[in-house]
Each structure stands twice: as C-alpha cells, then as structure tokens.
C-alpha cells in the first residue's frame, strides 16, 4: 500500500475512525485501526466490537493494500507533522509515514486479530441529518451511563404512527421525541440503540445533510458523507414507558423557558453538591425557586409564570431539570404535576413532539 494525502484530511479520518477504538480492550487487534487502499479510495476502520466507525476519503493512490496500524500512535504522528502532503506506505510488517524531513517507521499489528466487519443487509432509509441531530441532542442525554443496567444505556427507536419515536431514560427522567414523516420501522417494531453510538453519531452528523440508515436484526448502521457508523443493538425489553406518561395532570405551570433556565442556573449556586435539590414552590401567584444548603445558605427567586392548580412544592435534582429545559424546543414550557412525588412532565407550548418526564426528589 502506498499513497499521498493532505495532512489535515488524514488527521480527521484517523481521528474519526479512532473514536471507536477501545482503550481498555485486552485484544491487541482492537487497539489498531484497519486501513485499506483500493485505487484512490482510502478507508480507515476502527472497532471495539460493539461500535465500528469506517471512513473513506479520496487520496492519490499508488499501490493497493491493507493493514492494521496502531490507532493512537499513527494519529498522534500524523497530527504532529508539518502541514502539507503526507506519504503513507506499508512494506512487510512496517508502516512508513513521511512528510518533509520527517520519517517514521512503525510496526503493524497482526491483521488477523482485527474483527471482520460485514455489511448490513437491509433496505437503506434516508433521513434528514439536521433533524436527526436535533432529536438526538434532545433524547440521548436522558440515557443511563450505568452499565449494570444495559437496557437503560440504549435509546429506543420505535414506529409511532407515521413518525419515528426516540425514547431514553435513566430511570430518573425520560426524554421522548417524535420525528414526523419517517417510516423507518413497521408499526409495533422497535430497536434499542446504544446511546454511546448515538452520541458518536451526533458528532459526525454535523458533516452532512442527509444520513442513510440501515437496520439489521442485531446491528444498525448510519452513513453520512463517507463515514459509516455501525453499532450492535441492545437486546432486551425497554421499560414500558407509555404507562409512565400520565395523560392527566391537575396542576399546570406555564413559564418562559429562558427565564426559568436563567433563574435555575443562579439558584443552583446554592445547591452545589450533587443530590441537593432545588424546590419549585407553586401557588396562585406563580412560582418561586428555592435552594437551601445547610450551613451554607439559601437562594430564592420568583420567576414570572402562571399557575393553575393546588398549592404545591416539588423538589427536583437541578441538573436533571436544567438538562431537560436546555433541550426543550420553543419559548414557553409547561410543568405539569400531580403531587410532590409523582412524575412531573415538561412540555413545550406549541410543540407536541417532545416531552421530558422527571421524577421529583423526596424531601423529608
């Protein structure tokens, strides 16, 4: 294998595929990326078995070939070279990287240790990249990062009428978004995609306008502008979220989203420790935010709002509240509550396709 390429293009390519490379894997083959040159098409593949990222770029090819190279080291070397053209070539068990007066020879990794990547045999579906990126930003944050509950580390993709529904929950809050006009799955069908893969997908979505999605039985792949991300699907049953979203709430608070966010960020200063709740006191005059840390102090702020319902005080983890409000669409939001212990619902006024369900903190 031998080719020439611009340094910056190569840096990005190695970096993108390298994000799937596991840093903790015991398998030496997985600490490398697989590189392959066919004509002028140079392809880099990184994988940790759960997640695979493949990126293809155009280079000036001289001779075809395939090898597995140390991911981190190769990326660090290319990044450190002076700008301009870089030449990569392999001979026997060595990769040579040269640019200007720099010349590196590094040992290849045995290529038979690299996992076999197979294409998914499924009908491709085109999605709008920006729309999907927006939906991912609203939903992925609610997924759990706790590996002891693998189901909750996934984001549910399900057919809902003529929409694609995305749902994630870490068991304390739940985010749900419907993307209208996408018929990806048949009614009743659903898949669970690891949130880590969707987080990576979100990063590469910025590169393109359109994304091609293929859903297999055990895997799904997403292709944007020469980058393909393939992820294993999570097996198991997602919690029955439908039963959790109450269809009736006696209490409705309506408030400007930005005003509430600003006030919350201020009041949260008095709840610096994770776990210290912020209280929302609601009555006929509207709402007031309160945070108290024993031996430190108190913060209170009245936020202009309208409230219909019983006088109520509900406490929330301020981080969960902030994260939900930050990604909610629109200018005004409603906070729908039943009592101080039942799930509270945040919805955007004028937007029916997003909701954020949040469990209160019980204060005694």
């Amino acid at each position: 294998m031998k080719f020439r390429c611009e340094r910056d293009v190569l840096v990005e390519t190695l970096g993108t595929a390298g994000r799937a490379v596991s840093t903790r894997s015991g398998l030496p083959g997985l600490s490398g990326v697989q590189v392959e040159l066919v004509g002028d098409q140079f392809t880099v593949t990184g994988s940790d078995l759960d997640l695979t990222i493949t990126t293809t770029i155009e280079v000036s090819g001289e001779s075809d070939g395939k090898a597995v190279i140390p991911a981190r080291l190769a990326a660090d070397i290319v990044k450190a070279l002076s700008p301009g053209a870089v030449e990569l070539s392999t001979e026997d068990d060595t990769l040579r990287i040269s640019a200007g007066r720099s010349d590196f020879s590094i040992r290849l990794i045995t290529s038979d240790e690299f996992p076999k990547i197979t294409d998914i045999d499924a009908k491709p579906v085109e999605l709008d990249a920006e729309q999907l990126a927006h939906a991912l930003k609203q939903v992925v944050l609610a997924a759990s990062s706790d590996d002891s509950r693998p189901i909750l580390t996934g984001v549910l993709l399900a057919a809902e009428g003529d929409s694609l529904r995305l749902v994630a929950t870490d068991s304390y809050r739940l985010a749900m978004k419907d993307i209208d006009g996408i018929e990806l799955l048949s009614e009743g069908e659903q898949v669970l995609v690891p949130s880590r893969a969707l987080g990576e997908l979100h990063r590469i979505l910025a590169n393109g306008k359109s994304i091609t999605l293929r859903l297999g039985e055990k895997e799904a792949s997403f292709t944007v502008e020469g980058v393909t991300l393939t992820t294993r699907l999570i097996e198991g049953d997602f919690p029955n979220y439908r039963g959790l979203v109450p269809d009736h709430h006696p209490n409705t608070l309506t408030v400007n989203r930005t005003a509430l966010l600003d006030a919350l960020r201020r009041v949260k200063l008095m709840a610096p420790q994770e776990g210290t709740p912020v209280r929302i006191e609601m009555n006929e005059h509207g709402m007031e935010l309160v945070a108290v840390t024993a031996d430190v102090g108190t913060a209170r702020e009245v936020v202009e709002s309208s409230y219909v319902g019983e006088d109520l005080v509900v406490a929330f983890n301020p981080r969960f509240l902030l994260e939900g409000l930050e990604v909610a669409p629109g200018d005004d939001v409603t906070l729908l509550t039943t009592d101080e212990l039942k799930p509270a619902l945040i919805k955007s006024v004028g937007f029916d396709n997003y909701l954020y369900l949040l469990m209160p903190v019980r204060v005694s």
Partner: protein
Amino acid sequence: MCSTEATVLHADLDAFYASVEQRDHPHLRGRPTAVGRGVILAASYEARAMGVRTAMNGAAARRLCPGLLTVDPRMEAYSEASRQVFQIFDDTTPLVEPISIDEAFLDVSGLGRLVGTPESIATRLRSRVANEVGLAISVGVARTKFLAKVASGVCKPDGLLVVEPEKELHFLHPLPVRSLWGVGVKTAEKLNEKGLTTVGQVAGLDESVLVSILGPSAGRHLHALSHNQDPRRVVTGKRRSSIGSQQALRNRPRSLTEVKAILLELVDRVTHRLRDGNRVGRTATLRFRFGDFSRDTRSHTFHEATASTATFLDVAQSLLEERESEIRQRRLTLLGFTINNLSPADAVQQALPFETRSSPLLDSAVDTVRGRYGLSSIGRATLVGQEPGVRVPLLPDVDR
C-alpha cells in the same frame, strides 16, 4: 492532637457472643463453649485455651476440644446486650466512637475534676457492665487510640490496663510487631525476615529504612505507631459509612440458586436497616470467602443513592453471577453484602415506577409490618423452606 494525659479508653467485650451465651445458660459457664455449629463464630476463653478459634470449622474445633459445647447463635440477644453496653458508654462520656458491636473508644478528657481519674472511670465502667449487663469487658487506657487498643488486648480477659504517658514506649517496645495496627501476617513476615520481631526493633529503624522494606505509606505509618504517634481523635457521632451483613456458610458445594437465596436474605435485611436508619446508599459490595480461605470483593456504584431493596438486589445478583464459576469450583464459605457511600435520606431522587416490584410502597409496607411484629414476621416467598442462616451483624461495618 493527642492530650498529654492518658484519657482514651478502648473498651472491648470479652468473647462477646460466647459470654452472652454463658451468661444466659448457667450450664455453659466455666466450660468450653462455642457459638455456631458449622462454623465457629465465637469461642469462650475456656475453648480458646484448647485452640478453638473464630471462623474455624465446627468439626475441626471438636477434634481440638472434645468437650466443646456448641450453641446456635442468637443475634437478637447479642444486639440487645450490645445496646445496653453502649448505653453505659454513653452515660460515661459524650465522646464515644463505636468500632463494632462489641467495642468502642471513649474519650474521658475533661471529666477528671467532675468524676475522677480515667482509671477510676474505667473501673466504674467495668463494674457497671458486669452488674447491669452481666458481661466482662476489658478496658485499655492510654494517651492514643492505638495504644489504648493494644492495652485492652494485652489485659484481656476481664482486665484493666492503664498505660501512663511516661511508660508508653516501655510498654510498647517489647510487644511483637503484630501488635502494631495495620500489621497483618504478610507485613509481619516481611519484618521478621529482616530480623524485626518486636515493636522496639521497628522503632529503632529510620523511617527511610522502613519505607524501603514496606513501601512509603505502610513504612511511615509503622514508623509513627512504633513511636506511639497516633493523632486520631475519638470521633463521636461519626455517621456510619456503611451498613452490611454477612453469613458464614458450611463448607459444602452449593448451587447458584441456593447462594442467590442467601443473598436475597442479606440484601433484604441490610436494605431494611438502611431505611430504618433513614439513609440511602450508592455503593453495593459483595464479599466472598472461599473454602481455601481466599477472599474477594465485588462492588458497584450507582449514579443516584437509593434504599430500594429491588435495586440493590438486581445489582447484587449480577455481581454474584459474575462469580458463578468460582462459587461452584472453590466452595463459598462466607457471603457478605454491604452498602457504602451512605447519605441521609432527607433528599432522595425518586425513580420512575417502571418496575412495579421495586415500588417504594412495597419496601415501606414490609418495613411497617416488621416494625410492628418483628423481623421474621414477613419475608420473601423464595426463602420459605430454606435452612435458616447464621447472620453476623456488624455495627458499624468493619473491613475483615
């Protein structure tokens, strides 16, 4: 820092479980007695004289001591006795630091002019425990916690030993290195290899030499202790940092299902205590001891603290399943479950109710029934018909 007077008491009940049994069963008095039949949980001094030790297998103990009388443990009786003794501690001084169910540090500085010298306080404490609870307690008195604990160990059973400040090193230096806090079998071996057998010999070395033998942290620690430098104060009201329970198991093969049932009971009990203390916890730890006496622990930390039995059970079972092959091959002889990272339950993030069985309502209903009718009044259907296990309460949890 430490005071200039010997005002720290280390009070330690002698052969605690066995002494409670001898107190309640006159026919056991003066005779070698052991608590626990399969595994010895505690041995009376008469039994210890014959070589019977805690954690020994029952058959081995009977071979050493043919006249050994064994009784089933009565944990509730021990808890009650412990509660009475701690009541006497609390009457003695406001500065009580519990170490476990049967020992505590007491700081009596400042009481001198009011109620007498530390020695007279310790004497009165011992006679109150003897008269009111019917148990023997040994008390060591010294300027530091470390030395007070060494002193109570030296004067056992039923003893009192005051180490006056000017005689500290005189007392400490002839003792074997194992007396130093933190020196276990392995460290003692390393020291013995260098010809160091007494605390005095260790004290004679430069700190740098000890560091080169034992590493920086242990080296500095032992250097300080051998010169009786122990700045730890008696800390009262220190909220317990963990709650746990463990169960010794007879050394025989067990199926995973059987071990899971034992785990269920432990988790059920510990989470009940957690809620009872109005606490929540973030970390679950499983402890294993195997037939070859090797030990292992596995733990998991949640993002949010909880007191839910179902949540802890889920994670405890998956931690157990990870160890399935070892349990089968190496024979489990002890299973422990501990919840660490405790915090007050005054602000508890509620979880979405998508697992109906983890409903906080179920936990609180069970707790209410137990509060009214006792611990065994309600339990898990899975456990019906299981052989009742031996539970070892720890108060608070200590690493063992």
